[in-house]
């Protein structure tokens, strides 16, 4: 068993975990942060995306011990029912999301992009979402939502 400690959404969290425990399972099962989802368990779908020291990562592929001492931001630390992040507000306005299972990971990937690049092109938005799959709505309204959150004019780089 390993003692781990990390800052999650601004709060210091501790746990004792077997070595094989993933960051995703410690977030979901030990700390009850179920906003990050287990979709594929092999790093393909991005439903488990969180930020570790500002970088977007698949929490299903990282071991909890690898994140010891680092800073983690999950969907629960971005907005809440009464205080939406601009990305979330835009998704709500445009109905960008249908079943919702991919939404937490997509909001996190979009935040990672905007934090570094507040005025991304549409192409940059698409690249930032390369690790996130959605099976319901397609990506159009998701991309439009992120663009709207950044208030960039649509189609600035000429792509569809």
């Amino acid at each position, binding site marked *: 068993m390993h003692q781990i400690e990390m800052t999650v959404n601004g709060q210091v969290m501790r746990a004792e975990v077997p070595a094989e425990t993933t960051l995703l399972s410690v977030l979901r099962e030990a700390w009850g942060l179920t906003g990050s989802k287990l*979709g594929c368990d092999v790093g393909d779908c991005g439903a488990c995306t969180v930020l570790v020291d500002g970088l977007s990562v698949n929490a299903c592929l990282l071991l909890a011990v690898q994140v010891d001492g680092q800073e983690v931001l999950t969907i629960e630390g971005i907005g809440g029912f009464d205080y939406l992040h601009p990305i979330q507000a835009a998704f709500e306005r445009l109905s960008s999301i249908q079943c919702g299972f991919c939404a937490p990971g997509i909001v996190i990937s979009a935040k990672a992009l905007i934090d570094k690049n507040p005025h991304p092109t549409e192409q940059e938005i698409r690249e930032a979402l390369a690790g996130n799959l959605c099976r319901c709505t397609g990506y159009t309204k998701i991309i439009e939502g992120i663009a709207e959150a950044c208030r960039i004019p649509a189609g600035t780089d000429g792509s569809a």
Partner: protein
Amino acid sequence: MSEKPTKEKPADLGDLLADPRVGQLPAVTRDPIPAVQALRVGANQQTPAVGQRVTRLDIRTHITGSTRYIDDLAFPSMLYVKILRSTEAHARILSIDTAAARAMPGVVATLTGDEIPENSFGSSYQDQPVLAVDRVRHQGDGLVAVAAETEQQASEALAAIKVAYEPLPALFDPLEAIRPDAPKIHRDNNVYASKVIIRGDVEKGFAESDQIFERRYSTQMIEHVPMEPFAAIALWEPDGQLHVYSSNGRITLGRADLARTLQMPMNRIRVTATFVGGNFGGKNEIRTEPILALLAKKTRRPVKATFNREDEFVASTTRHPIIMDYKTGVANDGHLIARSVRLILDGGAYASWSETTVGKAAILAAGPYRIPNVRVEGHAVYTNKTVTGAMRGFGAPQVAFAYESQMDEIANTLGMDPLAIRLLNGFTEGSISHTGQVLQAVALEETLLTAAKRSGWMEEGT
């Protein structure tokens, strides 16, 4: 009732595109969302909500990660269940030995098919075992369920189960499976659901045609791949009621299947539907629910099973691959005179929703076109492959691919614009469908013209 194609070939598509009805749909806008007015719906009046932008009721919890999907639920002392699946496509089961698995760390109970009161289910034919007992018919068939303190312990215990098989000849091609001498997968006939539609006289129609077009089209097997894998939880309430939480999208059917498989009155079973993280037809039947109910009873603890991605691919359903033979007779002016279609649906190892799928595929197979002579036959065939069932459209996308491909080929050979041949033959208001239905509110022509205008189809250089 036969309907003569009466419409003339349009002389100039430009005239049609100038039709004032074209392009009247509102353009996509980023304008502020107007407030929805209070609903006061009169008799036969369109609700004022139509055309208004509204906010999805459930979206705010989705985007904040606070929606509780089934995998976000847990109960005190809950056990986790994993299922051992067949390694053989078609085999007799000689023996199943779970003794070593039961002695593994964390394992609380196992379950085999012979412990299930009525070990069969299915939406039209109950031909699918919940857990296979004497025979496996595809590699996804479940054999043994293990309940353990952790998911990992349950997975590890699966490796300790010994199964002895006697392999049987397996069928992977539905065209082989329909041969009279093919090995039989269930009963004495591998064809288990058929639909035939006849209108007019296709042979006479072909004789009257100027040209005949024949081609085979085929589509592949597709998995729904919902973002959320299938999951269920079962527990027994203190008053003896069974309570099942499930991501099943058809809980009333699920409840009936539970009552049947468990041989319990339906009013003792409560099924709670959780938010579904994508269904697309792949969560329309029970999967693990009876197993979990029995393991919960055995262990007196809540039990949960969440499919991993592999379970999802091999043990849920998929979209039917269809082999589609099309023959169409046309006049040189582009009018369709006769069309015959034969559909062979790869039904996989069990019936699932094949009866519905073969029906819908056959009904739609001739396409939305006025054809006086039509003959369609569709057959769903057992193979030793992943079960095929409901998926968006129930067979409609497969036949659309075939008939629209053939329309393009006909247009190309006749030197016609692909849009023109569709406008010439397409259903219009009052057209009679291939199954004899008088169609109302037909907007095919308007839709095609709007799409042509918006996409720039008629512009030069496209």
